[in-house]
């Protein structure tokens, strides 16, 4: 998705190197004039930027690294975001586990409640680190005018987004490690090697899906101050009907079906399948993955069509 101008035009340094030798005082004007002339020789009908393929350079990768570092820095300096993205899921993990000690979930073939809810919390916490975090960070930065400023610089948009998503994925990995460690050592929820490939694929697809949905949802946020209910409400509501904290099978069928249409239930179910000792290896749930892929398509389409760099005017 690397898009930009062709690189045929000589860079400023190249031009300077071509010049005879130390040009004294008026060098700048002379140089600017030369640049103007060179630009003039370019064809006047320029292919739109987005239709142009520009190979990813090592400089782009370097820039991406800087973006990821900066986004990480911003997240850790934003106390509210840290509490919301990390503390909330961990608190759920601890308290939900403590209040259901020794319980079993009969509908899943009598697995322990721990084996059921640790994957559920894992799904929930990944949604919170990716979706909620991305949606709010983009919405806030649109409100602050950061997006507009960035759009006025040569930074390619794909690097900007990749930086945000990259920083988010670091947090997601951190979250996976925390939840699995707490699950393993606190609740004796084992990771099954036989279903490990399924687990990894589920994590990748689910995280990608909710990241894209975070970007898409940022479009709907018009006033970002103080944490927007537009962002939090959908996934909090979904997490109560999608069998994240308690088995969804206790709910009416229509509600189960409704929840299945959204990507949290498939995410949680597919993760749970990977942990459930009653599910045979390799433990893939193809339909769940397809539903999430479908939402990736929906999120991408919405983002490409409606994304705004500046605040809504008029």
């Amino acid at each position: 998705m690397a898009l930009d101008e062709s690189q045929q035009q000589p860079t400023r340094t190249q031009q300077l190197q071509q010049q005879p030798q130390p040009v004294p005082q008026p060098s700048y004007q002379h140089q600017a004039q030369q640049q103007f002339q060179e630009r003039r020789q370019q064809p006047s009908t320029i292919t739109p930027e987005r239709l142009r393929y520009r190979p990813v350079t090592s400089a782009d990768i370097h820039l991406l690294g800087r973006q990821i570092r900066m986004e990480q820095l911003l997240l850790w300096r934003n106390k509210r975001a840290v509490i919301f993205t990390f503390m909330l899921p961990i608190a759920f993990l601890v308290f939900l586990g403590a209040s259901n000690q020794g319980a079993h979930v009969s509908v899943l073939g009598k697995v322990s409640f721990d084996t059921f809810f640790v994957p559920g919390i894992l799904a929930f916490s990944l949604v919170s680190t990716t979706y909620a975090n991305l949606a709010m960070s983009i919405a806030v930065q649109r409100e602050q005018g950061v997006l507009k400023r960035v759009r006025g610089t040569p930074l390619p948009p794909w690097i900007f987004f990749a930086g945000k998503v990259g920083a988010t994925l670091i947090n997601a990995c951190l979250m996976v490690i925390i939840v699995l460690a707490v699950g393993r050592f606190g609740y004796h929820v084992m990771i099954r090697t036989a279903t490990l490939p399924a687990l990894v694929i589920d994590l990748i697809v689910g995280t990608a899906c909710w990241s894209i949905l975070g970007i898409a949802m940022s479009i709907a946020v018009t006033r970002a101050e103080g944490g927007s209910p537009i962002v939090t409400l959908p996934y909090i509501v979904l997490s109560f009907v999608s069998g994240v904290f308690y088995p969804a099978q206790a709910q009416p069928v229509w509600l189960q079906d409704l929840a299945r249409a959204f990507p949290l239930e498939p995410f949680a179910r597919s993760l749970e399948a990977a942990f459930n000792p009653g599910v045979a290896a390799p433990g893939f749930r193809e339909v769940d993955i397809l539903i999430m892929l479908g939402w990736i398509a929906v999120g991408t389409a919405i983002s490409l069509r409606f994304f705004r760099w500046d605040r809504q005017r008029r």
Partner: protein
Amino acid sequence: MPAIEVKGLVKSYGNLRAVDGVDLCVEAGEVYCFLGPNGAGKTTTVEILEGYRRRDSGRVSVLGLDPESSGRTFREHIGIMLQESGLQPQLAVVEALDLYRHYYDHPRSVAELLDLVELTSSADVRIESLSGGQRRRLDLALALAGDPDLVFLDEPTTGFDPAARRGAWRTIQGLRSLGKTIFLTTHYMDEAQALADRVAVISGGKIVAEDSPDRIGGRDTTTSEIRFLLPEGVSAGDLPSLEQPSDDLPSLDPSLDRARQLDAELSIRGDAVVVHTNRPDLALYVLTSWSTSRGLELAGLTVSRPTLEDVYLALTEDDS
């Protein structure tokens, strides 16, 4: 080749023609000041030039490129200082400069940028703790991070104290002396007067005037006002007649109606004498010859032409 060339620019929002056939030309190396009331099409025009908005029709060339389609190459050579600051508040000044300068192929150094806007002593301060004026100076530094050929400055000194404003003006004049082109919008007429080589006024989506700040709207030729205090012991009737200038008044064409050439109108307001005239030089000659021959002093004497603000307000009347 001009830095900016615009012909017949049109942009509509629904039924509203926000920009309605704008032509303008900014020469390389000049400070061009774009004035206009809110809602006159100013921001829309600037944002089209900056590459933020698409136009409906018209020809736009900025640094020889079409801002709509030239993407990264175009942005490499321009600097934009937006009205809304647009900064991540959790970053420190030096972190923000270091971040944004890396977006450009040939950036200025952080130290140079800090120095340019006199923020060196605040380098490690988080942006959220900066004052409004300091934030604005950081904005300016960020606009200059890529060492651009053309700089768009949108109300650059709003919120500055007078000393900081002079500082910003010096920076802008410094950029001009480096051969940079500066496209400036402002609501401060003294700023336009002090900085601009040329001023354009947009009103109702059209350019209604474009000239140097001293000539725009006929400032150089319209009526001037002379004002002084009526000397003690002198009554209005003792003043020399400007309506009927005497024959020895030099430099008036004797073959034409002398009163009309001077076109002076004298009135008394309280204890002040106010004269409106097209030829303040000649009116003053008459008045001062009269006063010096009588040994009187014209206390509080001023001669004023309409200010840029007066002209601007007259030009944009329809918009308000």
